């Protein structure tokens, strides 16, 4: 399988990365090189094989559904590019 220019633009949008028209052909080439490389997996017989979803055979640990952290708004926003009164600021979303 290979990707065309329109697919490259669609992937870039899904990934929320701005891509200029000039960059598309180059990215298309790189992505197709990677897809050609992984193509060899299609020769593996995977009939009846379960996908690996857990590296270590153990049951997922669960913690109690209780509040065990918090009251640290200064820490939460201290690295934010723009804040006001412990809120993150973003461009207007709702008109």
């Amino acid at each position, binding site marked *: 399988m290979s990707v065309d220019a329109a697919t490259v633009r669609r992937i870039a949008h*899904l990934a*929320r*990365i701005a891509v200029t028209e000039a960059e598309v052909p180059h990215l298309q080439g790189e*992505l197709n090189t990677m897809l050609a490389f992984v193509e060899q*997996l299609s020769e593996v017989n995977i009939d009846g*094989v379960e996908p690996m979803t857990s590296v270590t055979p153990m049951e997922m640990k669960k*913690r109690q559904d209780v509040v065990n952290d918090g009251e640290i708004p200064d820490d939460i926003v201290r*690295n934010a*590019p*723009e804040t006001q009164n412990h809120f993150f600021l973003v461009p207007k979303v709702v008109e």
Partner: protein
Amino acid sequence: MTDLTSLTIAEAREGLASKSFTSLELTDAHLAAIEAARSLNAFVLETPDQARAMARAVDAKIAKGEGGPLAGIPLGIKDLFATRDVRTTACSKILGNFVPPYESTVTSQLWRDGAVMLGKLNNDEFAMGSSNETSCFGPVVNPWRREGSNTTLVPGGSSGGSASAVAALLCMGATATDTGGSIRQPAAFTATVGVKPTYGRCSRWGIVAFASSLDQAGPIARTVRDSAILMRSMAGHDPKDTTSVDIGVPDYEAAIGKSVKGMKIGIPKEYRLDGMPAEIEKLWSEGAAWLKAAGAELVEVSLPHTKYALPAYYIVAPAEASSNLARYDGVRYGLRVPARSIGELYENTRAEGFGDEVRRRVMIGTYVLSAGYYDAYYLRAQKVRTLIKKDFEDCFAKGISAILTPATPSAAFGVGEKGGADPVEMYLNDIFTVTVNMAGLPGIAVPAGKDAQGLPLGLQLIGRPFDEETLFSLGEVVEQAAGRFTPPRWW
């Protein structure tokens, strides 16, 4: 007095205990070495004030007989580990001037045991790379050069700063992380020892995430014993990481010098690649001969799905990365490129903040997870991963204690030499190491010799899950036979 920076951790521990020198003296010697080695670009942030304060505090504890297992030992920390109040960037522009209000579990355990932080070490951006050339702080320089040549070589990656700093005697040991070979490959390129522990052995909490089902923290040090000393402090259960395993941490150092007599060591025939350099082949046979001389039995084994590990990795790792890196949106921390709408803010920030390699991987990961392609790529790769893991399980079920392979298909190469036209050329560096991450196993890279140009080469030992101890015992045999290698100082 001998130069304090050339001591091993084990030697320094004795010197500190016998009051031959203080941690402050040891720390100052390393801070001076770091300052004189800035041309290597191994450190992205030096923290001399904090280092001296930590050293003074630990000297006071040692005086009272309260020093921990790493009391007074100066270490470097890969910039992927969150360090409280100390800038942590993953060497990406998108994290900008991020200063964590928390400490990673692994580093907090090092400080608990008395270690001293010298600063933050360079790495490939978000640990994506095999040469440390993708860092936003620029490439790291390998202290090793080809004999009679001034060509600048890469230290490998992604833990290139860790490997370079340890090899150049800038720190006694370093933290590192390994997703596809990022501890073992740079260790092999710099004649250092690198340990990738079993998945779940070290907590991933507070480490900038790349591919969560593959990432594992581990040490880089100058001897097998030093790496065992560091491992004991780094490992352990952490409730904050649900994949961290709740089993006791053994005294890894006790495995050093333990007999390997009667152990069955697998030599996987699939690792013998067409066109493999003769010196790699020779190194591998030498390693096998050393283990045999120590009483181990060598058995040819088969890991039939080996060749599919790297392509499966380049689906699984980018898929997980595309999900993990979705958090970098210019809103809560890091870089923000202003825009009129929230959508443009995300897109512009991520375009500006991610380097080429990271963008490439996020895009391929997005693609293989997207509707219509998930089954063909991601699900298939996860099934192939099951087969790769089963290969190892079958092998261990036959009584194999560990598997011996070369660590890398070549010695260190020049800056700008690989991957420029074809990203896959760079990816092939991890061909021997990536299987271990896919199966969640422990692996160790140990320096074993030099190539015809005088560059170090390493061997890899792969162990059963949670049996790092056997790797330390076998690694010690290799180190005793091969000797240790130190780069001549030119910087």
